[in-house]
């Protein structure tokens, strides 16, 4: 007899429940409940940070003023703005059923979503960084994690995307970084407004087929309902929101960096009185805004000289601008796009 894939459509739920429901499912699968494919749509906008990420990456003051709750999820990735224009999906399996290699697990569990996007009419593909794209634009956010003995991979169908607000909720260094981040967000993150019911049906078919499971409408188990109550409390506590103890994290964030999609990011960094705000696309400087005492009339020339330059070659280019250039190169050295 074929094992069952529970398909649970939670429908439109509160922002809190749009997170805690699928976490509860993960605990249930960990305890022996059948695998599950679930869907949910948040009724109101909110902000969600990845398990390891600092609250200092979110503009909490803005979020408070706008009435946007902030929650911390148990899977990875950065701070994201979420709203009713996004349909969340989660696939959850026992860890033993998932490849031990995390990258392989991600590819395996995101491939059916790509199939579903295609079935819904979107020319989607999974890039080398396991992001679901159409052309060179990211069309689906994702995160993954092992919760107990279950692995969950989650993502979203972005029907509408508020680029402005998705940028505004982030704590950025200054207006220059905000403008640059918004520009790249508009360029590299796209909505794919397809028929939601058709997408859900395609997801169900794709995941059941890929996993060799028989899809059947499901609901939460008693264990999962118990967990849901606990998770509702945990996710609204200040202690949980603060995140895991990571004494070294502040030191790690020498530059304020924001990833827009894989290989596309902005950063702001300083060295002495020199200051850099730059965007990076696939390892090369896209745009740079430079400030350094003594650079004076050479500022625009230096900015132009950096456009299209591989990050590794930035010190050589800036060396042509003397002492101020070397100071700017030191600021550039703080950026590390591989680990954001």
């Amino acid at each position: 007899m074929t094992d069952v894939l529970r398909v649970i459509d939670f429908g439109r739920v509160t922002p809190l429940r749009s997170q805690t429901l699928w976490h509860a499912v993960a605990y249930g699968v960990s305890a022996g409940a059948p695998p599950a494919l679930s869907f949910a749509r948040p009724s109101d906008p909110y902000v969600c940070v990845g398990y390891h990420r600092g609250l200092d990456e979110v503009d909490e003051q803005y979020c408070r003023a706008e009435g946007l709750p902030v929650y911390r999820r148990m899977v990875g990735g950065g701070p994201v703005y979420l709203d009713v224009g996004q349909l969340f999906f989660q696939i959850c399996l026992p860890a033993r059923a998932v490849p031990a290699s995390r990258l392989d697990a991600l590819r395996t569990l995101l491939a059916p979503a790509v199939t579903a996007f295609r079935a819904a009419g979107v020319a989607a593909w999974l890039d080398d960084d396991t992001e679901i794209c159409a052309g060179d634009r990211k069309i689906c956010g994702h995160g993954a994690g092992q919760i107990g003995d279950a692995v969950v991979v989650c993502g979203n169908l972005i029907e509408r995307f508020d680029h402005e607000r998705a940028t505004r909720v982030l704590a950025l260094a200054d207006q220059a970084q905000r403008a640059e981040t918004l520009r790249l967000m508009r360029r590299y993150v796209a909505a794919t407004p397809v028929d939601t019911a058709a997408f859900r049906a395609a997801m169900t078919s794709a995941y059941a087929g890929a996993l060799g499971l028989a899809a059947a409408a499901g609901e939460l188990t008693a264990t999962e309902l118990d967990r849901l109550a606990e998770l509702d409390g945990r996710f609204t506590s200040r202690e949980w929101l603060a995140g895991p103890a990571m004494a070294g994290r502040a030191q790690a964030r020498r530059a304020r960096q924001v990833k827009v999609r894989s290989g596309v990011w902005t950063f702001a960094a300083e060295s002495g009185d020199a200051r850099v705000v730059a965007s990076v696309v696939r390892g090369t400087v896209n745009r740079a805004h430079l400030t350094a005492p003594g650079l004076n009339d050479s500022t625009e020339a230096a900015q132009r000289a950096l456009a299209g330059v591989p990050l590794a070659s930035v010190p050589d280019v800036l060396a042509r601008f003397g002492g101020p250039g070397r100071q700017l190169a030191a600021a550039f050295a703080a950026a590390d796009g591989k680990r954001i």
Partner: protein
Amino acid sequence: MAHTGGDDRASWTATPPAGLVQVLGFPLVLDRLYHSRTHMWVLPAGPDVARIGMDRLGTETSGTLAQLSFLAVGAELAAGRPFGQLEAAKFVGPLVSPVSGTMLAANQAVVADPGLAERDPYGDGWLIEVSLSDAAGELPALLSAPDEIIDWFVGKVEDYQLKGWIAQ
């Protein structure tokens, strides 16, 4: 590395690890014990103290490490249960302890720079230090003889290459 003693916790000098060999392109150090399933190594530093880290194959199959977090110093550890979390490619997963005991220290350098665990997995990229609660019962179950460590490691590399998890 060598244990240099201490009153209530281990300390290590920063000398290069002894017994460093290359196995099918991956570095492996033969001066310590290995947990075959989790790719964690255990370097005893006395009867009841050990340092724990992840071997190079473990970091390779995790992807580029973005974040590491550990339980607090003083936390009780159980073999087979998490002592922390690792994030790579937006995937958060447990760092599973190969031994039981009490957390003595977490490597703050590797928290600040997770890439250290990839660049120097057997040296400065260590993860935690532990006071062992059942050394006599648990350490003998780990791989310790150089020949068996190499055989296990070769088998893992070949298996992961076959599965496409690492390059041929």
